[in-house]
């Protein structure tokens, strides 16, 4: 069953001259208790999508469309209901654990604060629950560490604290925005492992945002690939990585080093600025499969095979295997 449905989401920024659209006609759904991956390079709109679900877009950004969560449209509900939902039903883990924790409050208080806000616990109960949560995210000797301040902890430990805060109210959706990008590989493996365990125990859905296809391959069930503010391909992870149907997905996979010494096939050029996108298909100016029809109109996200959607007019012709 669908837990969160994003329908025709547009996000634009008001500038002096004209609004710049950075996310356009975004569609995807997250089912209950599944891990849904959102992949793309920097500037493709992954994080803005996450922020719009949380109702945390910057003030000069404007979102339209629908974000349906458990029957409610998050873009139209009043601020008070959104405040009650945020952190309780939907919570988020950010990329940089140092900038998302308050440096002048101890860890215990910051974890307990969510419980005080949403769960109506007494201060003593909230602190006790906080210790339990810190145990759940495998912070050693939580009774002592609860008095620590963020600067006394390592990056991995801080990210564990962020996770403890995020799962405190047993949300049904956890958004993890590049949760391990700031961490070393061995710590990254620890954190992803922990998220996997917690998610299963608590029957929680997760929106996993990352630029690393390997993380998607190992952790997500379904995923969407974003480019220039659009979903260009979405399907099960198995299909996405074994028989990609969009040239951009193929380009990402081919950019990865494989056999030693053989030249890589990078995607030509670089990501265009959001106000300088080409007409028609937004990937057409970098695409090796481009034909003149590509620049006529923007292709729709079409179902190519059951459950696999691609935004390319030539998807049927494309056969690719690693």
């Amino acid at each position: 069953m669908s837990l969160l449905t994003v329908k025709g989401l547009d996000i634009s920024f008001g500038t002096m001259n004209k609004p710049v659209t950075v996310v356009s006609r975004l569609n995807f759904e997250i089912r209950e208790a599944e891990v849904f991956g959102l992949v793309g390079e920097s500037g493709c709109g992954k994080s803005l999508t996450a922020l719009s679900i949380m109702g945390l877009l910057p003030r000069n950004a404007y979102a339209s469309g629908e974000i349906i969560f458990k029957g409610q449209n998050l873009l139209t509900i009043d601020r008070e209901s959104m405040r009650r939902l945020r952190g309780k039903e939907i919570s988020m883990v950010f990329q940089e654990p140092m900038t998302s924790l308050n440096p002048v409050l101890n860890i215990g208080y910051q974890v307990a604060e969510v419980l005080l806000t949403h769960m109506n616990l007494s201060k003593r109960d909230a602190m006790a629950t906080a210790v339990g949560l810190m145990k759940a995210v495998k912070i050693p000797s939580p009774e002592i560490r609860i008095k620590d301040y963020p600067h006394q902890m390592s990056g991995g430990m801080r990210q564990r604290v962020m996770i403890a805060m995020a799962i405190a109210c047993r949300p049904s959706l956890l958004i993890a925005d590049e949760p391990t990008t700031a961490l070393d590989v061995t710590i990254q493996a620890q954190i992803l492992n922990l998220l996997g365990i917690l998610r299963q125990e608590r029957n929680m859905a997760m929106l996993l945002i990352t630029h690393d296809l390997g993380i998607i391959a190992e952790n997500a069930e379904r995923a969407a690939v974003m480019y220039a503010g659009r979903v260009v391909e979405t399907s099960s992870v198995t299909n996405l990585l074994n028989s990609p149907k969009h040239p951009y997905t193929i380009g990402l996979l081919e950019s990865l080093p494989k056999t030693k010494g053989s030249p890589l096939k990078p995607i030509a050029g670089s990501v265009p600025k959001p106000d300088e996108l080409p007409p028609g298909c937004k990937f057409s100016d970098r695409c090796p499969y481009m034909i003149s029809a590509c620049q006529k109109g923007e292709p729709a996200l079409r179902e190519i095979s059951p459950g696999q959607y691609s935004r390319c007019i030539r998807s049927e012709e494309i056969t690719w295997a690693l």
Partner: protein
Amino acid sequence: MGIIDVVDLKKYFPVRKRTFAKQKWLKAVDGIDFSVRSGSVFALVGESGSGKSTVARLILRLIQPTSGNIFFQGRDISTLKRNSLREFRKSVQIIFQDPFASLNPRMTVFDTISEPLKIHALVKRSDLKGTVTSLLQNVGLQADVLNRYPHEFSGGQRQRICIARALAVSPEVIVADEPLSALDVSIQAQILNILQELKRTSNISFLFISHELRVVQYFSDEIAVMYLGKIVEYAKTDELFKKPLHPYTIVLLSSAPRIRPDGKKKPVLVGDIPSPIEIPPGCPFHPRCPKRFEPCDKVVPDLKEIQGRHVSCHLF
């Protein structure tokens, strides 16, 4: 003997202390040996705090070692003075991680790339423009960028400018300190292709520092894995990836996310990397090691040679 030989290199940084407290040291690099063979790519791999970047700065003689020696073409670089130091500075170049921080925002591309040419008086003033243009073409940039400033370029283009600047003086060694980490995947591939092409067509040797194992496997010939200032394993790249020996290398290789997961459960290390100020006694890896046994917390293992490769672990 290689183009660069590092012998028992140590770099300790003093830690700020209270007046009568005992002086503590941060052992960033704690006795390492390796050589970069001429025309090959030597990779240093490790997590943050393992001392990789300190090694890079020592080799460039940007900082002085606490003890130990670095030889460039057989000459100890700490003894170089005036002209020979100048010559050394020309021969060893660096590409930094962050192309946003390593270009002067107030210098045009032409100024940036021609500066080393002027300092070392390598080309006549009238030939400067032609030389800079051909350097830019080598890294895939057109001559029309000459009068533009760094802020007008994307990360990938800036890294190309940094590479062109390093190549300007025809160096013999390039130290590349995480040159791809700040870039997106598709751009990483573009830069990696440039480096690969350089490796193929020139005789430049590389010291390549990275934590991206996929990239290291693709690009390097030999590899040393560092942990808390020490080399724990040192081998030919193919052999190391085929059969890692040190428990840390094993976990490091399996930790990297893979596009084709093999379905096996990954070994996950317990705990964090200890602080380099308080390195554990014995083997520095023992508190996190899944295979530790009796001598590990007491005796520091040496880097031993086994079948042409080197590993520092009591298991071998």
